[in-house]
């Protein structure tokens, strides 16, 4: 019994850190636990959350994807460019955005798997290229005047839950299912845990890697669609630094950067910690300079609590 509690703690230490954060915030700010604010947190977390689910695949694969922020922007402007009112039905911009994202991810995966170049450097290249492509595509200007049906994706509610939150939840379920219940998921863990051993076991790791990065790209594209529809414009300079937020969520959630270990559940907690932190510090009106220090400390603290076994 006692042992089980200990196991739970050491496995879900990050959950404790999260709870502590929640408790502190709700004591400090009466507005924090209100329904609308909880929805705010979830909605604000959803974009990073969607990206972070994709990042989880990539990091379990012992890789990393620095390009997600730029790919998000590229997908956002491509999608938005098909979303002007009266031009195409709403599924066209959605498919265009998802395709753009997946394609970038696919290319990342292809180069990493086939040329055996460090994911860090490949996706760093893609980060610059996708950003440049977004700027060239739009000439540097945001794509504006989007159709109402497109803008609904980010702005409307279903049963008083914001649509981005619903999309996020669906992504979490599918991602979690893929990783934990399918052969592909096992191969992701195997490839990331020990690539040589995976190959020796007859797993075609290049396929797994390509698919993993494609998923990350797909989800970055999806996040780009949600984001552009939420702010009703597709900006080529959006999404900067999102890769770091996503990686932070994944790592705070206990996924190891060296690969082979990790869960979507952890990632979600990680993303929520970041979301709660951003929201709470704003509620408390902590000065933006101090916010940065506090955020850095909370991240370190959360990870330390988690790793202290």
């Amino acid at each position, binding site marked *: 019994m006692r042992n089980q509690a200990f196991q739970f703690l050491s496995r879900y230490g990050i959950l404790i850190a999260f709870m502590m954060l929640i408790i502190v915030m709700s004591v400090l700010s009466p*507005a924090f636990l209100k329904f609308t604010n909880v929805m705010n947190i979830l909605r604000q977390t959803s974009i990073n959350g969607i990206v972070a689910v994709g990042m989880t695949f990539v990091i379990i694969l012992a890789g990393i994807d620095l390009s997600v922020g730029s790919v998000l922007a590229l997908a956002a402007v491509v999608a938005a460019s098909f979303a002007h009112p009266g031009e195409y039905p709403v599924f066209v911009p959605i498919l265009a955005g998802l395709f753009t994202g997946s394609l970038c991810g696919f290319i990342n995966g292809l180069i990493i798997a086939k040329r055996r170049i460090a994911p860090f450097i490949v996706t760093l290249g893609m980060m610059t290229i996708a950003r440049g492509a977004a700027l060239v595509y739009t000439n540097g200007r945001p794509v504006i005047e989007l159709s109402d049906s497109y803008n609904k994706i980010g702005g409307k509610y279903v049963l008083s839950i914001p649509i981005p939150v619903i999309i996020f939840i669906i992504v979490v379920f599918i991602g979690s299912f893929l990783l934990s219940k399918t052969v592909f998921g096992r191969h992701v863990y195997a490839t990331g845990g020990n690539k040589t051993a995976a190959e020796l076991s007859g797993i075609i790791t290049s396929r797994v890697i390509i698919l993993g990065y494609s998923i990350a790209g797909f989800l970055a594209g999806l996040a780009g669609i949600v984001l552009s529809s*939420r702010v*009703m414009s597709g*900006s080529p300079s959006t999404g900067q630094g999102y890769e770091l937020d996503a990686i932070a969520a994944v790592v705070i959630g206990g996924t190891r950067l060296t690969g082979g270990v990790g869960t979507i559940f952890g990632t979600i907690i990680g993303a929520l910690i970041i979301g709660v932190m951003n929201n709470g510090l704003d509620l408390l009106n902590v000065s*933006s300079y101090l916010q940065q220090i506090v955020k850095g400390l909370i991240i370190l603290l959360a990870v330390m609590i988690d790793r202290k076994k």
Partner: protein
Amino acid sequence: HNTNSKKTRITIGITYQNLQNEFVINIQDAVRNKAKELNVKLIEVDGQGKAENQISQVENFLALDVDAIILNPFDQYGSAPVVSIANREKKPIVVINAVVVNLDKADAYVGSNDQEAGRIAATYIAKLLNGKGNIALIRGPNGHSAEIQRTEGIMEVLNTHPDMKIIFDQSGNWDRTQGLELMENWLSTGKPLQAVIAQNDEMALGAQKAIEASGRQKDILVIGIDAIPDALRAVKEGKLCATVFQDARGQGALALELAVKLCEGKPVEHTNYIPFQLITKENVGK
């Protein structure tokens, strides 16, 4: 005749503060158009939001032996060495849009004073609120020259209105999403709020979206700066109470003209202010 015209063709190097900013792109458009019109060869580089890049780029201009330099400074202090380099190498230099501390050493300046933009926005809000109310301020990136100066202008006005209080104050990094999320969070505190001053339109539009979603559009005024197309539309629809127009095209065209004149040895006016203009529902069409 071709060789002849090439020989006399003027080359001008221009370094922009950051070409991911729509306002700066507008300046670029005007500069390019004017350059075509005056048959000037233009070498354009992007500082990407880093003063040190601008210094490097001007050093590169010297290797290309440009005839004149136009500087659109990112940082009023950090970009200042550009002017010193131009002076040292005896290249005419025109500063455009934003200022540098050693502006007097430049041959000409075209632009608007960012403090002025802040003053105009804050004054208009003060007027609409009758000098009373709670304000949220969304700043540009910390330490950016425009953020510093616009904040100074805003504070200058607000300090003269003791009943106007800034209750929220954060940086939104010129970004619409950040403006949106800041506002969502502030609104959930339930504190009474009368107006939002955003230091650019993107952030103002984000904040406006959050206010609209919360149904408090009637109670909270939002003002931006820059007058980008999306913002003008929002002003027309009454979603933003106003924006402050800065004449990017006018600045760009004039700066290039002055640079050409300097190359030709003609005299020019040192300081050329192009005033800001408040755009409200009344004058938005013009």
